[in-house]
């Protein structure tokens, strides 16, 4: 049995629906019902065994259970219990409030297998309210244009829209065609996103003063030419670093991440105090160094095939 295998296998446990964790073609998949729904949407009819949060089952004498990771809809940490030893695999996770998914649940463990996508001390994500404020201010300052927000189609896009609603923005949000189905899926799982209108096919005049959400790859694409005087925004934890934002021609960087930042990563380690930590992907070197300074036993695994640039 594998967790988030990067190749097709007979029996896979999948933490969440992002492509670098949920590959297609596995024989049998165990995942949360939401993750199975996302995989079905992305890969066609993929069947699996739904495991709701908190529920467990046994395989080869190992007790397996799924717990909320706070990353995207359906994202889970996986707890493995055997002979009194508890191993937790976080998958991708964050500790911040997110109206589109269940909040991270700290699970006591002996071995913690963690991600470290933003595992450098420079990554401290600001409060999302500040970033949403910036987005709304920019939109208000450009009544004749529009703001186009690059956001990953699974998770980030829905979170940005839900946070806009939470901030009181009730105008329709225009979305790129590639996002429609995922937004519908979120709605079907009880995440209300308000009125969404496909941007494709609209006249420039209808988009003026609007907020358009699109996958990052569309920002510098021909697709963006249809937009009226767009201000290019990007919602990603990588936007914290100015040079990274400039490289992508971003005019309005929004530091919004679905991953734990440095303080959340290290804070979680201090909170759970596992006797051993394995770091799967991201800045394994820096988080490993921090563990060394805090006398926590740690090992870098440097799994290949993780980390999607735009997913941050």
């Amino acid at each position, binding site marked *: 049995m594998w967790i988030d295998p990067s190749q097709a296998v007979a029996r896979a446990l999948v933490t969440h629906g992002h492509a670098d964790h949920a590959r297609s073609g596995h024989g049998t998949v165990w995942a949360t019902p939401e993750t199975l729904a996302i995989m079905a949407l992305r890969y066609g009819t993929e069947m699996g065994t739904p495991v709701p949060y908190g529920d467990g089952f046994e395989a080869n004498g190992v007790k397996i259970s799924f717990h909320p990771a706070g990353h995207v809809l359906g994202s889970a940490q996986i707890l493995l219990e055997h002979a009194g030893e508890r191993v937790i695999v976080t998958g991708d996770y964050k500790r911040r409030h997110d109206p589109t998914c269940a909040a991270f649940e700290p699970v006591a463990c002996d071995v913690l297998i963690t991600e470290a996508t933003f595992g450098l001390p420079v*990554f401290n994500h600001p409060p999302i309210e500040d970033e949403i404020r910036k987005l709304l201010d920019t939109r208000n300052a450009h009544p004749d244009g529009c703001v186009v927000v690059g956001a990953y189609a699974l998770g980030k896009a829905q979170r940005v829209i839900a946070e806009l609603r939470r901030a009181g923005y009730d105008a329709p949000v225009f979305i790129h065609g590639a996002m429609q189905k995922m937004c519908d899926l979120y709605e079907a799982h009880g995440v209300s996103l308000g009125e969404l209108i496909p941007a494709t096919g609209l006249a420039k005049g209808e988009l003026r003063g609007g907020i358009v959400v699109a996958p990052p790859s569309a920002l510098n694409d021909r697709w963006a030419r249809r937009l009226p005087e767009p201000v290019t925004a990007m919602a990603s934890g990588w936007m914290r*670093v100015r040079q990274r934002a400039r490289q992508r021609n971003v*005019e*309005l960087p929004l530091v919004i991440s679905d991953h734990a930042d440095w303080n959340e990563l290290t804070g979680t380690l201090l909170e759970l105090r596992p006797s051993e930590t394995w770091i799967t992907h991201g800045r394994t070197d*820096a988080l490993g*160094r921090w563990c060394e300074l805090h006398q926590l036993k740690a090992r870098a695994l440097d799994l290949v095939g993780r980390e999607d640039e735009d997913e941050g």
Partner: protein
Amino acid sequence: MQAFAALVDALVYTRSRDAKIRLIADYLRATPDPDRGWALAALAGTLNIATVKASAIRAMAEERFDPLLFRMSRDYVGDTAETVALMWPDQQTAKAPPSVAEIIDLLNATSRARAPSVLAELMDRLDADGRYALLKLATGGMRVGISARLAKTAFAQGFGLSVDDVEEVWHALRPPYAELFAWGEGRAERPNLADSAFFRPFMLAHPLDDGVVDLSEFAAEWKWDGIRIQIAATGTETRLFSRGGDEVTAAFPEIAATFTGIGVVDGELLVRGDVQGGEAASFNALQQRLGRKTVTAAMQAEYPVFVRLYDILFDGAEDMRGLGWTQRRDRLERFAAGLDPARFDLSALIEARDFDHLAELRGAAREAAIEGVMLKRRDAPYLAGRKVGLWYKWKREPLVADCVMMYAQRGSGKRSSYYSDYTFGCWGEDGTLLPVGKAYSGFSDTELKWLDRFVRTNTVARFGPVREVEKTLVLEVAFDAVHESKRHKSGIAMRFPRISRLRRDKPAEEADKVATLKAMIG
């Protein structure tokens, strides 16, 4: 400070020049004095906080962060100030964020030793963007793609003034520019400039390229290869300025001390020598003095400097700049007559019958200090910057000689695998080759490959990294001038030599003689 930090951030992400100007103009209009004045100084590069050096920021980082984590972060971010700003923990302090003025006052009042701790206290009162702006402000390197000119343009647009009018008074004023904003907002007259010696923008020339001018409309004079300089004197103070408007009085105290006139003049700083301009070595000495705060008596004695005058901008308090060149020249000649001839002379006009004659004189000019010819419209006023059709510079054609390759050495950087530095020689009286120069430019990549192969297959001896080659390859070498040199066995040295052509067709015996080069000494 938050408003300034937001401005700095917006400038980082804004690419269009017009949009940058609008951002700055909006900020300057919305922000009170003296914050906006300090901000303007920071953007225009005129803010200098002597107590904070880049090393203070590194010291702060070393004190707080694990060196390994800091290095990993610095490598990722690519900028020390930004790394520190991002790593710095957000503090829950009761103290409000400081204003720009408070920051400047605190840093100016401290010592270099205390600066890191003052800076740290300020960091604790700011968020990440504020910390970034603070560190950039304190070290004076904003790096937001703003030139001084753009900052002044933004000020001018923000307050409905012409940028040339702003430029005119700019150099007489000091940060935080209270008089400037008062003038901009119509609360005061244009700042009164009497009794202060300050910089006026230079008039500059376009290249003539292949153009021809009528000498009845244009005056011709030599273009001297020294350092362009402006002298402004009020009778109570005399100050010297370089091309960009930086004050260089302290670097050339002997000039300031001996200038007895009152007014503003434009000229070229040169070293007195055999050729009235000195050699390459003396030009380097001038360059080195430029940045200095003090110079020794020995330096002044070794390379005696003087100013060759080109133009007059003010005669006493009278503004000459609206007058045509002919009238200004007349006033300049009278003005210069009252100055110490050992330190100040006039740039002579070139008497040429017509343009062809001028071309001939230019071709024959051999002095190392002559860079070419200047052509100035006789009726043109003295205007700031480069204006079309008024002044032209007509650089001298390079001199050329056929030389023989003697030694080769590997280049540096991406050329390190090629033999790309060549020493070449000309024939001496006794029929031996004597080295006359070294060049490592002027050839194409294809030529470089060919030259490299030539060196490798024609090596006759090796001395460490140097290969001596068969003396068969003729190189046509272009250079700006020849001067005497005691360091070389040939007795001469070239200024800016570069390979202009490979003369594979030419037998080595037909290369030039050292005597031919000696005849080119100006």
